[in-house]
């Protein structure tokens, strides 16, 4: 999971769909933690296409 921070609006949709609680979403960044398995669920749900 890689987030394009110029597109990300930090809405949290990716966090809600992540099956393994692998996304940290603060007020300033959204990024994966060590649990990320690169399953692609977040990429699919992101409303603005910010996840590569």
């Amino acid at each position, binding site marked *: 999971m890689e987030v394009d921070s110029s597109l990300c609006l*930090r809405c949290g949709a990716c*966090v809600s769909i992540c099956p393994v609680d692998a996304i940290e979403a603060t007020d300033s960044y959204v990024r994966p933690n060590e649990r990320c398995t690169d399953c692609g669920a977040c990429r699919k749900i992101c409303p603005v296409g910010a996840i590569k």
Partner: protein
Amino acid sequence: MHGLRRVPENLSGRGDKVMEDKYDVVVVGAGPAGSTAAYSAAKNGARVLMVDRRRELGVPVQCGEAIAEDILNELGIKPDRRWAVNRTNAVKIVSPSGIEIRISEKKVTGKVGYVLNRKVFDKFLAVRAVKAGAEAMIGSYVNGLVFKNGRIGGIRGVGLDGKFEVAADVVIAADGVGSRVARWAGLNTALRFDDIETCAQFQMVGVDFESLSMLEFYLGSRISPGGYAWVFPKGDDLANVGLGVLGSRAERRPIEYLRDFVSRMPGLSKGKIVEVNVGGVPVCGPIEETVGDSLMVVGDAARQVNPLTGGGIDSAMRAGTIAGEVAAKAVEEGDTSKERLKEYERRWKEAMGKRLTRYLKAKEILLGLSDGELDKLAEVLRGVKFDRISLTDMLKVLVKANPKLLWKLRGLL
């Protein structure tokens, strides 16, 4: 009250400096659910801390901003022009082929609603909690629960002044659609693709709509598969124009569907976009289990959202109020076990469980209908004069006109 004196410092974002490290109740998230829970717990005598990762509450907006008046009456909150920016009393539903159904509430007895300014509303609710004695810690990211003897004993995170840890007798998870607190406590709140509507919204200026007091809804698989598009007026030529698509049905991003919708609508296409909002709305119906030892889950985090409309502010505030009260009482009695906190679960289910289940069923039925079938239903409803906005009233008309529908709609009437 210790909280009052410290309000200005807290809201300036330096919460850590004045924070005590033990509270009766810690609320994670300061949206409508969290702020209402914090208010209610503080009012009932608990020492409350409310934590939010955002440095500015209510931002970013992730909401169409429409709300029914009932909840404000229930909680004794007087609508204020600063956040209740437009009063509505009618809806228009447009079928896939363009058949329009209009419903106006009766002039005298009718229920009204408001289109909110969430940036102001959320801040208002947070300030209300703080004025009731709750402490607020803004710009503070909660990244884990603290366990004591295998039981939830607090939270930890990173704030403006670095890492922090706070002990609490009860933790209320009000951390929204992307809730993690409940998950850390072992409750399963992960969503699947058919549990979530992903939404995009433009706030647009220079648009035309039928009436300032009318909320508009547009259905159709071309417009927004598994969801709907909306036009919610906020001012003379200002409106929230948005849509939600069901995660499992979306072939493109919601923002792309929205651009198409806007360009096809003559009243909207000439408008200018002055704000872009996106977000996810859980439409799976509330989770069954919303309490644990020292834990309660409220609002979007508990999926307490009307699955048909996606509206969740009212449920969040209703649940938050109950949760805060139960938390304060439980702490006072010295029993914050899951068993004790179940009072919250029983009471929110009593207050809205049946209604949400019914809307979930309605949503599932609607999702099973083709655009053609939706047009047929709209054809039946078009000529009928409704004097209130009621799902039951509409269903009755449908079944009367087409008894075969009864089988599909059973359980809803």
